């Protein structure tokens, strides 16, 4: 359906190199990347706002790299909303419908349908100058969705929304995708990728460093960056020895249960399965290390604790454990985990 071949572009200091991406019809493709990595630039290349230095954009087998913006059949929802400031909310949503040979009744009902879906019917008659960020975002979304493009480009379309709205709109996007719209969605929020996509690509330092089915990518991150970025902590490259030992960064040796006779690979240690204690525990756990607490980060109903044992481990513990043991930053602790807590990715 949509294909990027070898796209490269240089803008000042910034550059994207050799970006390849292929969306099939019906895909919900999420492009993940840090702030400033060029996600917006890539979407704008597809939409025709920016011309790449080299490479081609193919839509439905047709090369649209140099096609006019209005002739490309891709709809884009911009990160900065680009809501028309001189039109009311309603007029904004009406905008793409005006050229479409619809009766005013049909237009009216479409506007209301999509205002309903994006939860802004109460704003329809408002001007857009004083809307809040989240309101603007929904206006932009409704305005694009009502246009029912075959291929939809979304630039962080849920960034300014609260949890509840985010949930509602994720459902909406999922439904639209199920009804046949191909979606390329750009975000830095890996949860959004998990919640919405069937395929995902991770972009870093100007390149796509991993792409594929969402499950695959999240289960088998290609490298530390992907692993960290996708929310998986404790991701390491390891060298395995025949005696079920994995050596990480040449520093720490840990026991693993089974490494399929490979020599090099990646391992993930689930933070929830690491136990910390003030003293060396005698237990069935085969890995026991002494370390120093670097940082304690509170989350909802639990805490993440970063411990340096030669490598940095992220451990998740409950509130009670924290208060029971009175762990502090810089205090020394023991960590232990079973070899079954380790996942090996060849």
């Amino acid at each position: 359906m949509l294909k990027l071949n070898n796209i490269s572009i240089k803008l000042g200091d910034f550059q994207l190199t050799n970006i390849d991406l292929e969306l099939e019809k019906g895909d919900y493709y999420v492009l993940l990347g840090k702030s400033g990595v060029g996600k917006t630039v890539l979407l704008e290349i597809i939409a025709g706002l920016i011309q790449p230095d080299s490479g081609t954009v193919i839509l439905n087998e047709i090369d649209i790299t140099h096609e006019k913006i209005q002739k490309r059949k891709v709809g884009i929802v911009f990160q900065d909303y680009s809501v028309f400031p001189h039109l009311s909310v309603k007029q904004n949503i009406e905008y793409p419908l005006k050229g479409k040979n619809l009766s005013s009744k049909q237009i009216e009902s479409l506007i209301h349908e999509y205002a309903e879906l994006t939860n802004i019917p109460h704003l329809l008659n408002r001007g857009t100058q004083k809307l809040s960020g989240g309101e603007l975002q929904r206006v932009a979304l409704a305005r694009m969705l009502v246009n029912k493009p075959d291929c939809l480009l979304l630039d962080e379309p849920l960034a300014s929304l609260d949890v509840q709205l985010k949930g509602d709109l994720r459902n909406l996007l999922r439904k639209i995708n199920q009804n046949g719209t191909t979606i390329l969605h750009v975000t830095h929020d890996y949860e959004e990728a998990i919640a919405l996509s069937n395929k995902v690509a991770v972009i870093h330092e100007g390149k796509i460093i991993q792409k594929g089915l969402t499950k695959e990518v999240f289960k088998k991150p290609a490298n530390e960056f992907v692993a960290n970025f996708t929310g998986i902590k404790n991701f390491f490259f390891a060298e395995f020895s025949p005696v079920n030992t994995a050596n990480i960064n040449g520093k720490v040796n840990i026991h693993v249960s089974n490494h399929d006779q490979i020599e090099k690979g990646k391992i993930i240690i689930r933070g929830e399965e690491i136990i910390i204690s003030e003293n060396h525990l005698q237990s069935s756990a085969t890995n026991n290390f002494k370390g120093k607490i670097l940082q304690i980060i509170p989350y909802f109903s639990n805490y993440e604790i970063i411990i340096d044992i030669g490598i940095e481990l992220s451990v998740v513990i409950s509130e009670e454990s924290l208060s029971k043991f009175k762990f502090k930053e810089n205090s020394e602790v023991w960590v232990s985990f079973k070899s079954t807590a380790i996942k090996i990715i060849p």
Partner: protein
Amino acid sequence: MNNKSHTPLIFILLGGLILLFIISPLLGMFLATTPAQLFETSKDPEVVNSIWLTLWASFMATIVFAVGAIPLSYFLARTNFRFKGIVNGIVDLPVVIPHSAAGIAILGFVSRDSVLGKVGSSVGLNFVGHPAGIAIAMAFVSIPFLINAARDGFENVPVRLEKTALNLGASPARVFFTISLPLAWKNILSGLIMMFARGLSEFGAVIIIAYHPMITPILIFERFGAFGLKYARPVSVVFIIVCLVFFVLLRSLAKERKSTDA
């Protein structure tokens, strides 16, 4: 919202001086005119006709030439080309050309031997001494004000919004009329008002193209020459009052548009 203005006091003082500078000469003129004179003058058909003619010619010049000037401004705001600097410079030229020189130049352009003059003749229209000629002379000296204001206005419209509209499937023409034009409208209106106003005051160029029918600046000149200040002044004052009323109305129209935006 803006109840606490944060304009420094010295600004108000400096600004006040400028206002005084504009008002004082006019005030002197007003104070030297008696209401009876004004009343007389405002009934004088020659005066009334000339004011109508002036307003009408400048209005037509503004409207007709806006049809080309606004697209030109848009083009200049949006497209980069090699000799854009020169074209921008040329656009400013009519402002700078001494008015009688401008009049002479336009005379060459519309006189019977010229291309335009021949076209006119063929439909029985002689621009020289005709309101159409007056309008052309007014347009020539005043069109840069519209072009510059509109270009500034278009430059202030985010290209991004235009591209958004294109992406939503609108044709370039629709984008222009529904996005660019409304968003630049404030500046364009300001430019239209300036062009109209500038046309009203033109004397030097118009007198060469058409002494008759007589626009108000020429009438004032003639009255002054023939009868002196005492007869010229009330005409000026009546003309200025009419214009002031016009401008207050036009400006408040411009403001209204703006406030409905909010």
